[in-house]
Every structure is written in C-alpha cells, then in structure tokens.
C-alpha cells in the first residue's frame, strides 16, 4: 500500500515538473494588417499569392488583402477615414498622391523607407520621383506600367511581315497596320477598291477611353510640349502640337481604317484575332498568357514625332495617417517585403521598379516584356496636381474622356477638341 502511494506521488511530481514543457506556451496573437489595392484582374491573384507567402514567413502578422476597382477603392478609403478605420497599407498611382496628401491623409514615409534599407538609386528614376509630392516622400514604388504594342505573330507572318523587324516609328507602325488590315476581298487600305465597310481583319485595336487621352499625352510629349505649368495651375500645350497628336490618332480610325470605329473591348478584339495588334499596358500579359494558341510579342509605343515617349504610371504603397506608429511600421515591413519580392509580382505583367529585380535573370527570362522594358527610359507620367481625381478622372463625363471619345469615336474636328479640352482643364485647375 505504502509503495502504491509512493508511486502515485512520483507520477504526480513528474507531471508537475514536466508540465511547463508539455503544455505549449500560448503564442502572442499576430498583428492584423489591413492592405487595400485596386488589382481586380489576374494581377489580384498574384498579389494575393504574395500576401499568403508573407503571412507564412511572418507568423507575427496576419495580412488581409482587399481588392476593389481603383475608384470605389478610393471612395472606400475616404469614408473609412471618416469612420476612423483606415487601412494600414494602401496602393495607388503616382498621380493620386498629390490629392490624398493635400487632404492630409498620407503619412510622410521618407524616414521609414530609409530604415527599411532603400535609397533612390535602388529604383528606376521615374518610379522613385513618382513617390514625392512637393519634396516630401509619401510612398515606396513597386512597379511601373506603360503603353506598348502587342503583336499577334501568326497574323504578322500571314501578312508577310518579318517578326524580327517590329515597327518603332510612326511611319513603320502605320504601314504595318495597313498591311494587317484586310477587307472581304483581301484588299488593304491603300489598294484600289478597298471597302472599309467590309473589313474582315483590322491592323490595330486601341483604347478610346481615358487611355486615348494618355496616348495624346505621350504624343505631345514626343513633340517636346509641356502639358501644364510647373505649379499645375494652367494648361499650356500648344494648339498646333495638340492638333497634330489628335489628328494622328484620329487618322488611324477614320482615314486609314486600320482601327474599328467605336470599339468597346479592344483586348477581346485582339484575343479573338479580329485585330492583329493592340495598344495597351503590361497588365494584359497575365491574361494573354492563358489564351491557348495565341502567339504574341510586344514592341514599343510608336515614335511618331521627334522624341520617343510613352505614357506610363506605376503602383506604389502608401501608409495612411493613423494613431498607431507601430502599425505604420508594421505596414512598412510588409511594403518593403513586397518590393523585395517584386520578382514574383512581375508575373502580373507589371515591370518591377527595383533595379536589382529588373535586371535579374528571372525577369529578363519572362516572355513578352521586351517592348515595355525598352521604352521605360522614355516613360512620361501624368503631373501630380492637387485635384488630380477631378482632372484625370477615368469616368465618362470627365474632360479627358470626352476629348478622347470626340476624336476617336465621333470623329470631331481636332482643333475644336483641343480648345474644349483646354477650356475644361483650365476651369478645373482654377478651382481652389
């Protein structure tokens, strides 16, 4: 009996001694981080994969990514500021920074970016400059995206064109689009008897929304013309150069008949081989890679005038103002990790802003980026002005969309469009 009691005592003692090792120590709860971005296509899936990887590698954080289209995303941001529940990390574009920093919603992050181990020379110059407004840094850049030209290699070969000689100048570009445009009788736009009402295949698909304005913006930049005054208070582009830019674009549709009139979905037209080329951004790459049997490549946006220039923008990470500095620093940890892992982000089609990633063998081995990378030195981004949401709105009644559609859909006289655009821009820019 006594032995039994001793045995029980020993077992009890051993349990007490072993307990701290056997019972797992309760880990501290991970910090929840809220991350918002406007990636609603295949790029959203790539970013979601990156966030999952971050969560696995950083058990101390739990990041939730919310994606919405950019306009509703910014609406949600403003209302969330009102409700006192801002996201910890918010993606946007260079031209959005001025608006939100003027409203006092963004935290200056220069010091945090420096602590994260980054400096300006690590990034493409245009991407780094896009994170500043009036000398203060509000963001860290992850990528750049710009207009380029997608080419269907099968249709290109069928037209008897050499795939080693893709067009780079405006003249070469128009010649190729004419060669690729075919009517029901197999004639091209410059052939006698060509019927523009019976076109079976068009040479080019291009956007006629706000991206139509972006193309005009690139073309006036090619002529060396400034768009706005340095302080963004007035439009100063010249009538003649603006008219020349609009006219070149309009001729593709109404004179050369190489672009369908009133296209509603240029990307689908390119995928379904209704058109042989497409002017668009690298965000279409992830989708195009999934289209079976479509052989394509990219070339630069055509140099129509004196100097090369293509519209570009980029994605960058901002940290909204909030009371917790610790959360802001945690958000910068996430942003810095994403920037360092932008090699995977390049799978979305966007071109990494970090030079070390851009020059990596992995990125250089990715298909179809050649055209976009080649024009990066000539990229022109929209100016940062405090009412950019109003001036550069992508919605239909905005001045830039109305102008582009007047030229590319209605075929209005370009001189009238130039005057209307200038008048509406100046009215908006004069609004306090």
């Amino acid at each position, binding site marked *: 009996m006594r032995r039994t009691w001793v045995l029980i005592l020993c077992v009890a003692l051993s349990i007490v001694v072993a307990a701290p090792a056997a019972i797992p120590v309760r880990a501290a709860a991970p910090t929840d981080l809220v991350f918002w971005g406007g990636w609603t296509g295949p790029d959203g899936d790539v970013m979601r994969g990156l966030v999952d990887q971050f969560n696995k590698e950083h058990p101390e954080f739990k990041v939730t990514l919310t994606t919405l289209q950019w*306009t*509703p995303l910014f*609406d949600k941001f*403003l*209302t969330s*500021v*009102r409700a006192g529940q801002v996201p910890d990390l918010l993606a946007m574009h260079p031209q959005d920074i001025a*608006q939100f920093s003027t*409203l*006092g*919603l963004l935290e200056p992050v220069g010091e945090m970016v420096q602590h994260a181990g980054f400096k300006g020379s690590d990034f493409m110059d245009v991407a780094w400059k896009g994170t500043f407004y009036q000398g203060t840094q509000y963001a860290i850049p992850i990528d750049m995206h710009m207009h380029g030209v997608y080419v269907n290699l099968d249709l290109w070969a069928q037209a008897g064109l050499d795939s080693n000689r893709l067009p780079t100048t405006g003249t070469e570009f128009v010649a190729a689009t004419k060669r690729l445009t075919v009517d029901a009788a197999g004639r091209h736009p410059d052939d006698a008897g060509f019927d523009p009402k019976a076109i079976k295949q068009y040479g080019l698909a291009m956007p*006629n*929304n706000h991206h139509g304005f972006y193309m005009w913006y690139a073309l006036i930049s090619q002529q060396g013309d400034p768009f706005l005054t340095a302080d963004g208070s007035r439009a100063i582009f010249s009538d003649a150069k603006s008219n020349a830019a609009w006219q070149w674009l309009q001729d593709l549709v109404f004179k050369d008949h190489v672009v*369908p*009139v*009133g*296209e*509603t*979905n240029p990307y*689908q*037209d390119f995928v*379904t081989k*209704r058109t042989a080329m497409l002017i668009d951004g690298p965000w279409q790459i992830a989708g195009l890679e999934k289209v079976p049997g479509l052989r394509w490549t990219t070339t630069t946006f055509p140099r129509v005038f004196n100097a090369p220039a293509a519209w570009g923008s980029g994605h960058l990470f901002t940290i909204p103002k909030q009371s917790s500095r610790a959360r802001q620093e945690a958000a910068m940890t996430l942003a810095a990790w994403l920037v360092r892992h932008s090699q995977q982000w390049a799978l979305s089609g966007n071109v990494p802003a970090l030079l070390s990633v851009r020059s990596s063998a992995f990125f250089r081995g990715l298909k179809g980026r050649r055209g976009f990378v080649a024009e990066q030195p000539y990229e022109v981004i929209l100016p940062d002005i405090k*009412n950019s*949401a*109003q001036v550069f*709105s992508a*919605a*239909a*009644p*905005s001045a830039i*969309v*109305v102008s582009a*559609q*007047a030229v590319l*859909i*209605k075929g209005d006289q370009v001189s009238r469009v130039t005057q209307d655009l200038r008048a509406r821009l100046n009215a908006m820019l004069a609004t306090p």
Partner: protein
Amino acid sequence: MSILPALASRRAGVRGSAATPYLFLLPYLVVFVLFRFGPVVGGFLTSLTSWSIVGTPRFVGLANYRALASDPLFYTALKNTCYFLVLTAPALVLGGFLLALLLNRPLWGRGAARVLIFAPYAMMSAVVGILWNWILDSNFGLLNFYLARLHLGPIPWLSSEAAAMPAIALTTVWWTVGYNMVIFLAGLQEIPHELQEAARIDGAGAWQVLWSITVPLLRPTTFVVVMLTIINTFQVFDQVYVMTGGGPGTATLTLVQYLYFQAFETFRLGYGSAIAYVTFAILLALSWLHRFLPSEVAA
C-alpha cells in the same frame, strides 16, 4: 344588435396613457429618423457646403445650386435623363399592360410565360449590364452577328452616340417590364368578372369591353405604374454605370450618373448633394401632377 358598440365599450375600459400609441410607433420612428429623415436633412445641409468627405465642411450657402444652374454638363444629364424617360416609360407602361392583358387570358403555358417575363427583374443590375454588353458588342456581340447576316449591321450599339441610349433603354425594358406586368395583372384580377359579362350580354364587343370597362377600372393601377416608372426611370444608374459609364462622350450621362461622378469620382460631395436635391425636386413636381388628374383617377 351591432357588435361595434360592444367593442367601443370594451376599448373604453382599457387603461392606457396618451403616450401608448407613440410608444408602439417608437421602434419604427427611431429607424425612420436615423436612416431616412436624418440623411434627407443631412444631405440638404451637405448641399450647402464645399466638402470632400474628409476635413471640415465649408458653408457656401447656395453656391452649389448657382454653379449647377450654369453647368452645361448638368443640362446634358437632365436632357439625357428625359430622353431615357421618353424611350422607356411608354414601352414599360404599355408593354406591361399588353403583356398583362395577354397573360390574364386562359392560355396554355400562361404560368411559365409569366415567370419567364418576370424572371429578368429578379436579376442583379450588374449581371444584366454585363449580359447585354456581350449581346450588344460591336465586334463579337450576338445581336450584331444576326444583324450582319441580314446585312443590317454591325451597329456599334454602346459606342455610338446615337445608338447608346436606345441600347440601354432596350436593356431596361427587357429587364423591368415584367414588374409592371405583375402590377397590371393584380389590377386586372381585381376587376369583377360580372361587369365584363354584363357588358357582353348587353352586346359589347371585345374592344368596347376593354375601353369602357377594363381601362377605366384599371386607372388607379395605371396611375401607380406610371408614377413608379417615372420615378425609377429618372433615377436610372446601374445599367448605365455598367454598360457605358455615361459615354460615349456624354451621350448616356444621366442625372444620378453625374451625381455619382461629382460626389464619388471627384470628391465634391456638396455639389453632388445639390444635384440630388434638384433631381428630388423634379421628381416631387412630377409626383404632384396627380393633383391635376380627374378625381376618380387620383383615388
């Protein structure tokens, strides 16, 4: 002996303060004030300010209304909304009435037809917009495929200034005519059969029964349908937002679309609220039209 005096005497015996009815109403009133009346007043006060949701609103008096009076885009939106009203309202009211007349008859497959016509109304507006975007696409749309076979197309439905609004109107009629049909059906079934039978016995033909019995007795229903159609049509937004975004140019820019653009695309909440109140005033004026209708119609 009538039961009413007995009820009255019992009611008189119930003790209760004067506040009792208000206490019963209180739960609804709280919800009404918080979510209806409050925002209505708040919206009007916002229309008197310059405000971008964040920061402090700046009182500007009637400046937003004055700016609206000289804003050409506002008049474009108003004109487009009226055009949309003209395109859709007659088709929705007349179409709903004719479909109800047809499907009120003892036809084979009547139940299935009622469901099929009403079914689109149960679809989400975004789904309807995307569906019709594909049907109407200028290059690979279903409608243009058949029009091309008949040598009638292709027509750039959504990217031509002339065709975009009629295309949205067509979509809207397909989507919502079933709702009006159901209201008319309910109205038709309220008309006593005896009246129509008596008319027929007196020698009235089908047209006479329709014009002299059915249409007059449907007037209260017709009034409701007309008013609801005008109000809903004037507030058109979803299908425009999904299908054209207000374009091409400003061809399909409607009042609510313009309100959304100002308030939520360019963050001018005060100006957007002013557009909302002018739209509200126009609708209120239209709703008061019934005061000038014959008394039996307004009843």
